[in-house]
């Protein structure tokens, strides 16, 4: 009988297997190919039945999110993105199709900073279905299943009617409507704003119901919500206000109260600055890159001191409002004097490299490189990166990735003399490793060193110019070896946006 083992298989599939039965199952599957095929079939039946039985009211399918933070998780977001489903295709009809995906929802929370919803007026984890929502605090970025992005700042009260219509009772919304999603409508208490393929911002006053529309790009039609009569078409650069039954053109005022998708990352970063200032003495240099005459060290154990900025200019960093230093000339650099001795050193930075046009490009290197203990962190013309010190021979080097240019990248690296190893990471993933032989010198003493450049007085040096072409936004120095988990946390804390994580790696 081909189903003679089904009972055992069900115990396994239903989580009722004892240790003895587990052993029996392993032995059976090891020697019986037909049993393997039967188990696969029964597993498929079970999975198909789970979907067949989907019921929106019962909220059946809840992916486990235990490894990811609520709301801002990339992974959770992706899992949820994958479950986008047109409501018309839902089970619930007389004969639901087995192969239909699961939980229906109209929009997905793809990013947030400090978001708090009123009790009973929040999403199902990251999913927004039809219903009323009240955002009490923070900023949220929603993506609808048709690709429309909306960003809202608290306080805001809104109702999602479907994936083409939200009613905004109160608050500020920035909307980006991609081609194909024209017709997306934001309804205010007295007027509908129907997108014709564009980007726009709407503000609704919750007290008197008045609303203001700013069209950033494209066209938006203002319509009477009852008759659908076209009241006005508003075009790029124009603003209009609807108040007391009248629609009147107005000057476009300051739009800074509207958050953009990218600005959320900055807000989140600002909230998490305390992470660095609450670190132990092992964090000896924390440079958030606030625009100041010196590159100030905000670490609570600032033995590295401040950096002296030479030439490098303040420009926009990972987000609008956040600063970075631009290094694009041969004499741009930031200089430090680090006189302590270290057994372990780690550095991490957010960097955006324009190009590799020199044999070697410096991230952070001791001047002259003539004394045992001098430190280096630099990149090759091919985008490979290495870290080490004079006197520590690196052996068995492996390098699996190169650094991408033209985008924000998180770089970090550690040199551990006790562990005899060097580890380097790109965007949280280890990409280079080397064993270290510290037998000729077993201390790191960076001394005078430069960020974004290198200085040497050696006239015989062939690669004197190692100036960085790009931007640096944030830099940290630790007197310990960073673990994989710690590096991943640094990436998570500072990533430009959730979408950066999806698209840049």
């Amino acid at each position: 009988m081909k189903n003679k083992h089904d009972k055992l298989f069900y115990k396994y599939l239903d989580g009722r297997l004892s240790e003895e039965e587990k052993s029996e199952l392993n032995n059976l599957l090891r020697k019986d190919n037909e049993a393997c095929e039967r188990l696969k079939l029964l597993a498929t039946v079970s999975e198909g039945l789970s979907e067949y039985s989907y019921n929106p009211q019962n909220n059946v399918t809840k992916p486990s999110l235990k490894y990811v933070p609520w709301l801002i998780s990339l992974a959770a977001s992706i899992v949820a993105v994958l479950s986008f489903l047109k409501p018309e295709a839902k089970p619930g009809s007389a004969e639901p199709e087995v192969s239909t995906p699961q939980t229906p929802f109209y929009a997905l929370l793809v990013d947030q900073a400090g978001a708090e919803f009123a009790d009973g007026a929040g999403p199902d984890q990251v999913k927004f279905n039809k219903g009323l929502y009240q955002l009490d605090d923070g900023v949220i970025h929603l993506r609808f299943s048709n690709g429309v992005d909306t960003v809202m700042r608290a306080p805001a009260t809104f109702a999602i009617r479907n994936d083409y219509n939200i009613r905004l009772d109160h608050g500020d919304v920035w909307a980006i409507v991609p081609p194909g999603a024209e017709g997306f409508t934001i309804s205010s208490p007295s007027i509908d704003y129907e997108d014709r393929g564009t980007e726009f911002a709407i503000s609704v006053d919750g007290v008197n119901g008045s609303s203001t529309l700013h069209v950033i790009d494209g066209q938006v039609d203002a319509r009477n919500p009852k008759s659908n009569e076209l009241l006005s078409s508003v075009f790029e650069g124009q603003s209009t206000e609807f108040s007391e039954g009248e629609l009147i053109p107005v000057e476009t005022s300051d739009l800074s109260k509207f958050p953009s998708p990218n600005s959320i990352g900055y807000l989140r970063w600002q909230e998490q600055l305390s992470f660095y200032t609450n670190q132990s003495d092992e964090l000896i240099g924390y440079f958030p890159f606030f625009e100041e005459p010196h590159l100030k060290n905000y670490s609570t154990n600032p033995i590295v001191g401040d950096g002296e900025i030479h030439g490098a200019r303040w420009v926009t960093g990972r987000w609008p409002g956040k600063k970075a230093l631009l290094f694009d000339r041969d004499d741009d650099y930031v200089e430090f004097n680090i006189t302590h001795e270290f057994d372990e050193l780690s550095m991490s930075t957010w960097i955006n490299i324009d190009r590799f046009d020199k044999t070697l490009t410096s991230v952070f290197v001791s001047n002259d490189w003539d004394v045992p203990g001098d430190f280096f962190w630099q990149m090759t013309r091919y985008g490979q990166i290495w870290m080490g010190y004079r006197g520590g021979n690196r052996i068995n080097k492996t390098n699996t990735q190169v650094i991408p240019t033209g985008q924000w990248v998180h770089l970090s690296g550690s040199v551990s003399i006790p562990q005899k190893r060097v580890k380097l990471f790109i965007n949280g993933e280890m990409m280079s490793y080397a064993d270290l032989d510290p037998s000729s010198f077993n201390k790191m003493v960076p001394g005078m060193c430069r960020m974004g450049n290198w200085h040497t007085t050696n006239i015989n040096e062939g690669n004197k110019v190692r100036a960085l072409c790009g931007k640096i936004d944030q830099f940290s120095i630790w007197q310990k070896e960073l673990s994989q988990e710690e590096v991943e946390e640094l990436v998570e804390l500072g990533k430009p946006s959730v979408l950066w994580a999806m698209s840049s790696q």
Partner: protein
Amino acid sequence: MEWEFTNKMSDELNADLRSEFPRLWAKHDPSIRAFVRASLPDPHDLAEVMQNVSVIAWKKFSDLEDAETGFGPWVSVIARYEILKFRRTKARDRLVLDEDVAEKLLDEPSDSFSMRSEWLLYLSTCLKKLKKEHQSLLREAYASDISIKKLAEQRNKKPNAVYQTLSRLRSALADCIEKEMSTKGAQ
């Protein structure tokens, strides 16, 4: 605080990824889940591995040359690796098979993915052949967190009797699917 308004989402995310990946994933998701479930029956384990698989597939989607026909088998390869990686962290779990057995289950010929999709299609057909009361029982049993005990109480039956019925129904569905497959193969 200064804001700039030139940062459009379209600059950050490739339009093809945005439109194609979710569609392909939604299409193949049931088959991928079924593949993972045979090796990781615990729903939490399943969800976790599916998360990992989806993230990796998203990241590497641009590497896939023939997405329309190759997506399912390609994701299965990713899933295979992730299952093996995951099971090593839980090797002592009751529901985690020995490594050699797990590898045997996961080593499939290239056409297995499409076969699993067919199984799911025929499951739909076979379900319709069941009595309405049995369809209802299966739907309720799988629909939510309801326990077998509760289900039995609602039907004024003993839990074991309900469990046995559910087992028989699943076996009947599996037999039906095999029969449909062989009928199709004979045509």
